């Protein structure tokens, strides 16, 4: 399929029909979508079989460039929403996909994004069952925006909340920190870095399932996206009123990510991730959960990075590899390079 998106693709006529049939229905390939009703119809019985609560979330994706080292906007749009469901303990099942396309977008670009969404959805075990597409005039949007909403089911008995961190609990992470942020820091090439780092963008649903199988009573779980692991740790500390102590030397950071950070004066704890979660579990559950994580591909490099104590309340404290300690606070704004 050659050519570009035109306003006709959104006009409700034959062009739109063709786009939906060939690109989306063909691309996402499942019966629920292929029915082409105005809504997806989901069997309640099938949902109830998985648990006793629905989890429901939505997120929008706007990135420039659309394709970046190790990933693209389509992969991001699936993993982002899947991960938001998964870290609530839910098994993600169904997604919607709304797209806003800029007139002039090459159809081939769109097809690559759709293929990437399909592959990621398969990996995460979810189906894209309903969708919508709008075309806007050139300049009214930047190439391609995606919104996905997702539904998942939380198994009975699972109670994951940021406020549940308790003194004595252990803090775990599923691998290398800051890859996504370091990969896209110069994706537009303005800083002229020749940078081998790739995004860590991956669905975490399988990993969370494995963790829950090892220990249904995980206290806290969140994916560390924008704001980095520093952001998530602060959310846990504030919600639980506990102190989170992190051992700097235990936090896994790739050499190349450190290189990017040293060159630009950035702190990896604040770099974005797209496939990392931070978990807090009771001390006796730490080892079994860690083992379960390491047995799963998305958690191969999992480690324990710290411990929860009572005071100073609501703080995150980093014990530096140098023997000192400091507070890790929330960022004021976007992290900017510190150079001159």
């Amino acid at each position, binding site marked *: 399929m050659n050519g570009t998106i035109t306003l006709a693709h959104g006009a409700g006529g034959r062009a739109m029909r063709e786009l939906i049939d060939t690109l989306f229905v063909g691309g996402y390939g499942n019966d629920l979508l292929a029915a082409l009703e105005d809504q997806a119809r989901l069997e309640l019985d099938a949902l109830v079989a998985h648990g006793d609560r629905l989890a429901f979330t939505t997120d929008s994706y706007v990135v420039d460039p659309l394709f970046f080292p190790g990933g693209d906007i389509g992969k991001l749009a699936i993993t982002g929403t899947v991960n938001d469901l998964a870290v609530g303990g839910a098994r993600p099942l169904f997604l919607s996909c709304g797209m806003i396309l800029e007139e002039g977008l090459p159809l081939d670009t769109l097809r690559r994004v759709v293929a990437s969404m399909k592959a990621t959805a398969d990996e995460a075990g979810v189906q894209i069952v309903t969708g919508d597409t709008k075309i806007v005039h050139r300049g009214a949007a930047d190439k391609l925006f995606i919104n996905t909403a997702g539904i998942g089911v939380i198994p009975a008995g699972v109670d994951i909340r940021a406020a549940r961190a308790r003194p004595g609990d252990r803090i775990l992470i599923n691998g290398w920190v800051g890859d996504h942020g370091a990969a896209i820091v110069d994706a537009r090439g303005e800083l002229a870095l*020749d940078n081998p780092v790739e995004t860590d963008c991956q669905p975490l649903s399988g990993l969370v399932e494995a963790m829950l199988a090892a220990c249904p009573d995980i206290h806290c779980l969140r994916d560390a996206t924008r704001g980095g692991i520093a952001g998530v740790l602060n959310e846990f500390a504030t919600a639980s009123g506990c102190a989170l102590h992190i051992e700097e030397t235990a936090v896994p950071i790739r*050499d*190349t990510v450190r*290189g990017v950070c*040293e*060159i630009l004066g950035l702190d990896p704890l604040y770099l974005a991730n797209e496939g990392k979660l931070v978990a807090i579990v009771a001390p006796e559950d730490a080892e079994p959960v860690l083992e379960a994580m390491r047995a799963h591909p998305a958690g191969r490099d999992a480690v324990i990075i710290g411990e929860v104590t009572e005071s100073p309340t609501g703080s995150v404290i980093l014990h530096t590899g140098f023997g000192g300690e400091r507070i890790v606070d929330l960022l004021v704004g976007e992290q900017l390079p510190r*150079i*001159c």
Partner: protein
Amino acid sequence: MCLGIPGQIVEIVDHENLLARVDVAGVRREINIACIVDDAHPPEACVGDWVLMHVGFAMSRIDEAEARKTLALLDQLGEVEAELATMRASEAPT
């Protein structure tokens, strides 16, 4: 401020304009080496040099011998410390 970090020059990109490629933990970037070359140390001699880079310029060639000296001095302090500590420990019971 004045953020400067060590990197190693891996190739000369442009002799005339004194541009070289530098490697920092696997991340590379083009930098200007005008401040570290002279007749005694021409551009082609720079490959392999460890330099301190600041805003895209190599500003100093790192002196490995001096770096070793600094670390050796600190090691010595550490050893003296360790000896003192053992002495103190052996005296403690009396």
